[in-house]
């Protein structure tokens, strides 16, 4: 992010008084809350977070080692904002929108400080194709024209909050983001670029209730606990339980048009993995490289903590910008706990009164403000767009009763509870089917009815019942062994095992199984249901559970997951299943 000074002459310079880590104090500075300031001789970027008498308290986005009291501080008079325009897609930014590729060019392999770099290239020319003509009346949010950004068409808009006007001149051709492409009758001029303060949500016309699922290709998510486009979900789980893999699976395979992936206080290698993998993966819908629809924000755990706090806002603002063009955007934040911890660290340096577990009292408010920026909306220009937000939560000790998990659960509508017991036995995704929930089932009912199958909703409930029943039976088995169960319940145990091992387990690293479309999900569940129906009726006809367990077709079924064109194989298995049961029954 490059910071321009608003009224360079008018601002008087302040002086640093105290430096203690990422929080510094300045005096003699005219400042308002959240103004962006330049700190010290090296002009490190910072933001005003507290004003106390003459003392202006500033959080600094870079390492403050070597800075001394007495060094100058100047106020830019602007708040922390991102640059929005063509060139965002395929980029990887740090928490304050500095492109990491540019930083490598400017300062080498390690991140040093005091380097500014604009979020967008100001040299690159884009071909702008106008969609309005002179004489057209336009309002805030209106689409002025288009740029082919990647395979995605970038809509250039009149910024929000602008007064209506009449187009005088609109240009077509190759321009940089700074060149004026539109002039209004009243003399206002607009380039393609717009800046938006990250802490303020971009306005919309109205918020609507989500009714379409975000199809993720992950069976347990789409099948049991779906999230709607424009919805919110949380994935809490102890370390190593699969938060990042799940988020990356969603970034790869979900049918969003734009993906914003925020690595907030997590590992450097994980971001590198996305960077190396995504250009080679194809969007299953468009066949284009996944990178072309992706914006990455990487503020790893060893980068300055204040910038970590900002990274989440930088990400959601970019997501809202593409939503305003009418796209379905999904945003993954891994991990929101690191963001909350950054808040806690800054807050404790401000010596604020701590709330629960040292987190600031405004933790809940900040979390809900953030998730409220998700939603399915009617944009200012009348299009439908959505931002789906999926936040990972990293509870200390894997204990969900801690403040970040609890405050998040109060807001989000979908809860995917990761479970260390499952991940330890390599049941992936390690999402616990008994604790997880989705509050969108009702509103998505019709979609599944129409788009998947009229009996999908019924089959889903059936599967959930079997799993629920299994949990109860397991308690008995733990005491007396499975042989002591009535025969029909032994069949239930077997069917539940099939649901778990065939439907719920999904290998993110298998070329085929990593993505499973709704049709295949339905077919797999249907095949398990077929087995269940045949097994129960055989059992009533006198076939013993031990015999039922010898049905070979059952053991073939898991292989279907790894076969791309599975239809004929599945039909064969189902036919074989039928035959085997027939012979069992006639023998009984």
């Amino acid at each position: 992010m490059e910071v321009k000074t608003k009224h360079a002459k008018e601002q008087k310079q302040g002086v640093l008084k105290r430096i203690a880590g990422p929080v510094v104090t300045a005096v003699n500075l005219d400042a308002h809350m959240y103004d962006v300031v330049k700190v010290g001789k090296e002009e490190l970027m910072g933001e005003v977070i507290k004003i106390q008498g003459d003392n202006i308290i500033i959080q600094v986005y870079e390492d403050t080692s070597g800075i001394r009291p007495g060094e100058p501080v100047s106020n830019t008079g602007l708040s922390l904002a991102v640059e929005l325009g063509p060139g965002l897609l395929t980029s990887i930014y740090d928490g304050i929108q500095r492109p990491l590729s540019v930083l490598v060019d400017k300062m080498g392999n390690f991140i040093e400080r005091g380097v500014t770099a604009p979020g967008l290239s100001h040299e690159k020319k884009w071909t702008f194709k106008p969609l309005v003509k002179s004489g057209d009346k336009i309002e805030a949010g209106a689409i002025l024209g288009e740029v082919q950004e990647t395979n995605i068409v970038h809509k250039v808009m009149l910024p929000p909050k602008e007064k209506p006007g009449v187009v005088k001149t609109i240009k077509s051709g190759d321009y940089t983001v700074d060149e004026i492409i539109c002039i209004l009758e009243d003399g206002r001029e607009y380039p393609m670029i717009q800046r938006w303060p990250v802490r303020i949500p971009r306005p919309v016309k109205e918020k609507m209730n989500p009714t379409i699922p975000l199809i993720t290709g992950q069976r347990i998510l789409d099948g049991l606990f779906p999230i709607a486009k424009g919805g919110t979900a949380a994935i809490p789980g102890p370390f190593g339980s699969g938060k990042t893999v799940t988020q990356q699976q969603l970034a790869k395979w979900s049918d969003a048009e734009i993906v914003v992936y925020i690595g907030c206080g997590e590992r450097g290698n994980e971001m590198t993995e996305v960077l190396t993998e995504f250009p080679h993966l194809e969007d299953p819908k468009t066949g284009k490289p996944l990178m072309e629809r992706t914006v990455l924000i990487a503020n790893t755990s060893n980068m300055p903590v204040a910038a970590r706090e900002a990274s989440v806002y930088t990400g959601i603002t970019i997501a809202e910008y593409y939503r305003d063009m009418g796209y379905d955007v999904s945003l993954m934040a891994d991990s929101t706990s690191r963001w909350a911890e950054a808040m806690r660290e800054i807050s404790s340096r401000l010596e604020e009164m701590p709330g629960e577990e040292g987190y600031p009292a405004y933790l809940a408010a900040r979390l809900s403000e953030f998730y409220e920026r998700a939603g399915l909306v009617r944009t200012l220009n009348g299009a439908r767009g959505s931002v789906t937000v999926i936040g990972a939560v990293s509870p200390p000790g894997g204990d969900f009763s801690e403040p970040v998990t609890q405050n998040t659960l109060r807001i989000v509508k979908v809860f995917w509870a990761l479970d260390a017991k499952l991940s330890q036995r390599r049941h992936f995704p390690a999402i616990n089917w008994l604790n997880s929930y989705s509050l969108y089932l009702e509103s998505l009912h019709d979609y599944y009815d129409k788009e998947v199958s009229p009996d999908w909703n019924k089959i889903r409930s059936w599967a959930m019942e079997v799993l629920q029943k299994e949990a109860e039976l397991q308690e008995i088995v733990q005491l007396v062994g499975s042989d002591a169960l009535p025969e029909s319940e032994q069949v239930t145990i077997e069917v539940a095992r099939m649901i778990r091992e065939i439907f719920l387990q999904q290998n993110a690293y298998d070329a085929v199984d990593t993505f499973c479309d709704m049709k295949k999900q339905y077919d797999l569940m249907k095949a398990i249901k077929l087995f269940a129906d045949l097994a129960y009726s055989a059992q009533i006809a006198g076939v013993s559970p031990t015999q039922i367990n010898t049905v070979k077709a059952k053991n073939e079924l898991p292989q279907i997951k790894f076969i791309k064109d599975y239809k004929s194989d599945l039909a064969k298995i189902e036919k074989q299943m039928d035959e085997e049961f027939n012979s069992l029954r006639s023998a009984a």
Partner: protein
Amino acid sequence: MKEYRTINKIAGPLVFVEKTEPIAYGELVNIILSDGSTKRGQVLDTSDELVVVQIFESTAGIGRDSGVRFTGETIKMPVGKDMLGRILSGGGKPIDGGPEIVPEKRLDITGAAINPYARSNPSDFIQTGISTIDGTNTLVRGQKLPIFSGAGLPHNKVALQIARQAKVPGSTESFAVVFAAMGITKEEANHFMQDFERTGALERAVVFLNLADDPAVERIITPRLALTTAEYLAFELGMHVLVILTDMTNYCEALRQIGAAREEVPGRRGYPGYMYTDLACLYERAGIIKGLKGSVTQIPILTMPGDDITHPIPDLTGYITEGQIVVNRDLHRKGIYPPINVLPSLSRLMNLGIGKGKTREDHKKVSDQMYAGYAEGNDLRGLVAIVGKDALSERDRLLLEFADLFENRFVRQGLDEDRTIEDTLNLGWDLLSTLPVEQLTRIDRDTINKYHPKFRTGAKKE
């Protein structure tokens, strides 16, 4: 350089100095004692009225009459080629009787973050010769993979065995070892040193020793010195470096001690709220940089207080590192070495380092199937205790036996037993072949036909 005699307060490892000129945050400070000796510290808080200095050694002997010199620069570590083979104190001074290090460079010990854009994905399989690591929790070059252990468990033996045996098959280069001890006993340190000497590893090692009776606060800089050295060897001299940090629990205790001295609001169990970030600034100093030859692989060792994996030290570590190897007391009691419990263990970079062309195409599936079998068999042990073996179904009985076999043949191995990855995977298949083939649901038909001992017709026999 100006010397101040304006110390106003000394509390724990903190020294408060008044009436100074503007002092930089993070600056290195020398405190001059009346006997002429110096102690080092770093500026934690600076303002026009008061400067707070954290001392890295014991504050014994510091008084209000001591002199304070601000050096104007942050803490630097002199590094050079001739560091290999040397033994240094936890503060970086030679303690092997040899000469001072001839510095080729002086590097800031905090180390800047590697730009994720400049990183290259780790993907070279490291064969440690230990089946529970190579087979089921594979280590790759550039990974940070800690050992979670408990007091009195043989984690040091495991670490040494890894250091001795680690190699990248097909590469002739051996690893350089940077070893940093924090608060371990003299006896433990001797054990490491003797092993390094016995195997000749010392020639390719740099050792930093902060022992149990050395100042606790020095432990804050010991790992930073070690990692600065490792980065120099890796990214400037192009070596593959294995860093062993032991015991991170002592490091965290030192961190807590300083937090308390600064009267900070404590986080969980009294550890500072920024411990995650602080640990990340150490652990993230591992990896590979695009276009450079070397790599830094980290094996931090920590003892879990009360064997509790949810304790903040292992917990925060696990959230940062790329997996963990868990050493387990029950296995140790059963006399199994190495007592690695694979169930809570994990290597997140495993998938990048294994498979066709790296280890073997069946690797992932064999590993998954063994996990599933062992996990289920292990659960059944609880059930058997209640209902007895006879109440088990045939399937369950086989799983129970599989769990025992797994521990006794796959997990157990000799202190000097260096298994190749082929050995490890074949052993895995031998154990899996005690289960009915239909039960191997994690493995596809083709792989079974090719590798399962019963069907391995075309495959090579050893």
